């Protein structure tokens, strides 16, 4: 790049020297701009029976986070965590690039999402991914602000998603409160009635097979961490 600028200056001088002649000014060749940075994010649902809601995937700067452990969930995160609808969370966060997964990610299945940035710079940028475990009251899996600036073109990073409790809905596990196929009940409800209005790690579901008599869930709906695997590849 430095060489190109130097070359352009020399050409300009040459053009000046020849200004009295009949030849017109020489136009330097314009440098080819580098391609915009682009990332492929491939996700796999590692659970037995917890479909993941369509992924919210964002690349953003370090001035924001989708959530902070010990702090109340935002309205957009509450919406996603209780109903699986990611539109409010995507709208809340200022991103350089963002996308929604195309559909619910069934257990054992995967999807690749491509995000292209507006320039070739990734300095200070972070990746956030959030999805609901839909056979729960308000569980999510997330990558919460992964630093991607150090990923070079052609390089990949593997990161596993743990489960978190958004802290916005009591974990009753009743059919009426679980929107996934195991319950078919209500999704979002604005009231916050969990034991504490804060995002924490999730303790897992109890299920009717393991001592929660009101639970519509069975042993197969349990999980352990991690619940999802993500491979982040910078393609250009």
């Amino acid at each position, binding site marked *: 790049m430095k060489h190109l600028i130097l070359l352009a200056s020399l050409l300009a001088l040459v053009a000046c020297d020849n200004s009295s002649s009949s030849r017109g000014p020489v136009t330097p060749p314009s440098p080819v701009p580098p391609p915009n940075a682009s990332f492929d994010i491939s996700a796999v649902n590692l659970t037995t029976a917890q479909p993941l809601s369509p992924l919210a995937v964002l690349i953003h700067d370090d001035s924001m986070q989708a959530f902070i452990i010990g702090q109340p969930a935002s309205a957009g995160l509450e919406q996603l965590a209780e109903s699986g609808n990611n539109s409010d969370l995507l709208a809340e966060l200022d991103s350089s690039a963002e996308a929604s997964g195309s559909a619910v990610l069934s257990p054992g299945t995967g999807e690749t999402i491509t995000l292209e940035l507006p320039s070739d710079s990734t300095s200070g940028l972070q990746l956030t991914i959030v999805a609901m475990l839909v056979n729960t009251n308000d569980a999510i899996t997330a990558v919460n602000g992964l630093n991607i600036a150090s990923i070079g073109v052609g390089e990949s990073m593997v990161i596993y998603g743990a489960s978190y409790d958004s*802290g916005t809905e009591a*974990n009753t596990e009743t059919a009426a409160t679980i929107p996934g196929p195991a319950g078919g009940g209500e999704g979002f409800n604005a009231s916050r009635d969990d034991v504490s209005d804060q995002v*924490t*790690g999730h*303790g897992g579901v*109890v299920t009717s097979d393991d001592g929660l008599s009101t639970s519509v869930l069975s042993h197969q709906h349990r999980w352990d*961490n991690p619940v999802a695997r993500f491979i982040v590849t910078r393609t250009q």
Partner: protein
Amino acid sequence: MNKTLTILTLTLAAAAGNISAAQLDIEITNLTRGSFFTPLLVTAHPASASLFSAGNIASANLQQMAEGGDLTGLVADLTAVSATSIENPASGLLAPGASTTTSLDTDSAPDNTQLSIVGMILPSNDGFMGLNAIALPTQDGTYIYTINAYDAGTEANDEIVGGGAPGTAGFPAPGPVAATLGSGGTGVIATSEGFVHIHRNVLGDDNDSGGVSDMSNTVHRWLNPVARVVVTVAN
């Protein structure tokens, strides 16, 4: 050429002499939904020492910490090996979702190359969060560790409110913990396991005034990791 190599070697030797000393800022976050940590012990210690060893019998001093949150014995062990330690950075219980920060400076104790952090999990009979003798980072940067829950193996996991002294059944229930518990549990049938191991989690039940456990199965269960530690080294 020879001269250059010699100078380089000397430079490396000088760096090596100071390689294990560091100034660390340490942030500890309780990731659980409903479990408290008793006063934490954060320590940089020599490689010759460790607070516990998975698969082996807990020391009496680890038992004292894991059953009642009492750090006295472990602190004495660490003082005996000239460890650099911080006790109770959160000034009491570290609540679910809460964080605390502290600092360690090993510049004057370069032999303290290992980092360990322990604290009892409440409610539990003898569960504790444990980071066990990892290599203390010394290069400038930010390091993130996730911490798992261990069972000291010294007390039966009956899940009933009781006492915290070694050998006393049940677990202590200070005010903030008691507020999350039920009562009247008949007690989970269990025996002490005899060795330190990854905790199998608490059982709990859905009966606040009876059942087998004084814990709630929708509040007090956890999945690993139970804590996150962020270490920032700035020399």
